[in-house]
C-alpha cells in the first residue's frame, strides 16, 4: 500500500511574535499538520544560515523561518537582518538544487495564530508534493559506473 510521504519540516520562531503566534494557534485550537517542529530563538535576527543548512543536511525536508513583521521587531530592526540573510541564502540554496518551496519565510505577529497555522498547512502540502529531500542520500550517492552511451566493447589496442 502506498504510504503517503510525511515531510519533516523544522521551523524557527522568534520568542516575541511568531512563537507566540504558534501558541495563539494552540490557544485557538486551530489545527495544522504535525509535520513542523519548532525551535524558539529570541529573535529572527539570531537565525544563522548554518541552522538552516544543518537542518536540511540532517534529514529535514523543509525549513520554515518566521519572525515579527518588518517594522514590528521586538528588538526594533533585527528582522531586517534576518530578511537580508534569508534572501541571499535562498539564492544560494537555489544553486545547490534545493527547490524554493522547501525553505520559506513567513512574517507573523503574536496575534496571527490562525494565519500561521494556514501557512504551515500550505507549506506542508507544497513540500509533500516535492517528495523527500533526503540530503544524506544526495551526499552519499556515488555512482561507480558511467552513463553507458556505449556498451563496453572491444576496443582495438
Amino acid at each position, binding site marked *: 500500500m502506498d504510504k503517503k510521504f510525511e515531510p519533516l519540516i523544522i521551523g524557527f520562531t522568534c520568542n516575541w511574535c511568531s512563537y507566540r503566534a504558534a501558541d495563539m494557534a494552540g490557544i485557538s485550537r486551530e489545527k495544522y499538520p504535525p509535520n513542523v517542529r519548532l525551535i524558539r530563538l529570541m529573535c529572527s535576527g539570531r537565525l544563522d544560515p548554518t541552522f538552516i543548512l544543518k537542518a536540511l543536511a540532517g534529514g529535514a525536508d523543509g525549513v520554515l523561518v518566521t519572525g515579527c513583521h518588518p517594522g514590528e521587531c521586538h528588538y526594533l530592526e533585527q528582522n*531586517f537582518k534576518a530578511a537580508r540573510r534569508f534572501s541571499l541564502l535562498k539564492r544560494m540554496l537555489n544553486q545547490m538544487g534545493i527547490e524554493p518551496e522547501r525553505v520559506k519565510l513567513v512574517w507573523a505577529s503574536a496575534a496571527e495564530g490562525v494565519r500561521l497555522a494556514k501557512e504551515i498547512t500550505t507549506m506542508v502540502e507544497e513540500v509533500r508534493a516535492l517528495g523527500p529531500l533526503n*540530503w544524506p542520500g544526495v551526499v552519499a550517492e556515488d555512482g*561507480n559506473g558511467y552513463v553507458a552511451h556505449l556498451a563496453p566493447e572491444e576496443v582495438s*589496442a
Partner: protein
Amino acid sequence: MSDNGKPKFGMYWASSCGGCEISVLNIGDKLLVVDEVFDVVFWPCAADFKYDDVRGYPDGYIDLCLFNGAIRNSENEEMAKLLRQKSKVLVAFGSCAYEGCIPALSNFTSKEATMEAVYLDNPSIDNPAKILPQPINKVPEGELDIPHFYHTVKSLDQVVPVDYYIPGCPPEPHQIWAVLEVVVAGLLQGAELPPAGSVVGAGQVAVCEECPLSKHEKTIDRFYRPWEIDPEPDLCLLEQGIMCVGPATRSGCGALCPQVGMGCRGCYGPLEGVEDQGARMLTALASVIGVGKTGDTEAQLEAKLDKIMDTIVDPAGTFYRFSMAHSILKRAKVNGHGAKKGEAK
C-alpha cells in the same frame, strides 16, 4: 630500501594542480635544509618512486607525508589509504586536501555532466561515436581497468584520519617553512607537536587582522565587480562594494590579495571551530547590506532585497570557492542524471 636514520619524507598529489609542489619549491634555499634533514621516500613530482615501493614500506615508515590534492577518484582514495597506513604524520597539505578547493566545485554538477562536457559536448572535441572512458576495457590481451571517477569530490579527512592541516591555495612558502621547522624540532629534538587535528601554518583569526586596509562600520549599498571600479587604496574593499571574503577566512597568508586591490577569495579556509565557511560569509555579508528600514512594506523590502542580491554573482561559488567539500551540504542536488547536462538550476 636504505635506512640512514634520517626521518622519511613523502609528498603526494591527488586531484591537484601542482601548485602545492611549486609552493614547496618556493621555500627557496631552505629546500636544501629539507633535503639535509629528511630522506625523501616518495614524491611523484620530484623523484621516481612507484606505488609498489610505498606498498613495500613498513607501516608508519614515512615520518612526514604531505598529501595535497582532493579525492576525485578511486586512485586518489586508494593512495590516501595507503599513505595513511604507511605514514606517522599525514598532513592534508593545501586547500584541496584540506577542504576540497577548486576540484570540489565539481560538486555543483554531476559525474555524467562532467563526462559529457569533457568527452562529448565541447567545441574542441570530435567524438561522433560518443566514446566515454569505461571502468573496464576488454582488449585482446585481457582486461584494462582505470580508476573510478567519483560523483562527489571529497577532502582527505573524509576518507582517512588526518593529523594536521596546512591551509592555502597554495600554502604560503613562509608558512610551509614554519610548519616544517616545528615538525623537524618534534622529530629530531622531541619537541612537543601541536595536538592532532590542528590547522597549522596559519593564523587564529580572520584575514582582516593582517589586512592593512582601514576598516569602519560597514554598510554595503551595492556591489561592484572587480573590474568595474578602481578601489581606493587604503580602504576596506568590502566597504567599497568589492566582494572580499576575508572576514570569514583564516589569516596566515599576509592578506596578499586585498593589499593589491583584489578581494580575498577565501583560500585559507574557515576560522578555527567553524564548520561551514560559506555560511559564515553569507551571514556576515547579508547582515551589513544596507537594505530595508522601518517603514518599508513587506513588498518594498523584498523588491529592494532582490535588486541588490541580483548584483551578487554566483553566491554559492563565491562563498564556497575553496571549502565545498567541507561545507554542510557538501554538494548540490542535481536533477536528472543521465543525458541532460545536469547542472543545478
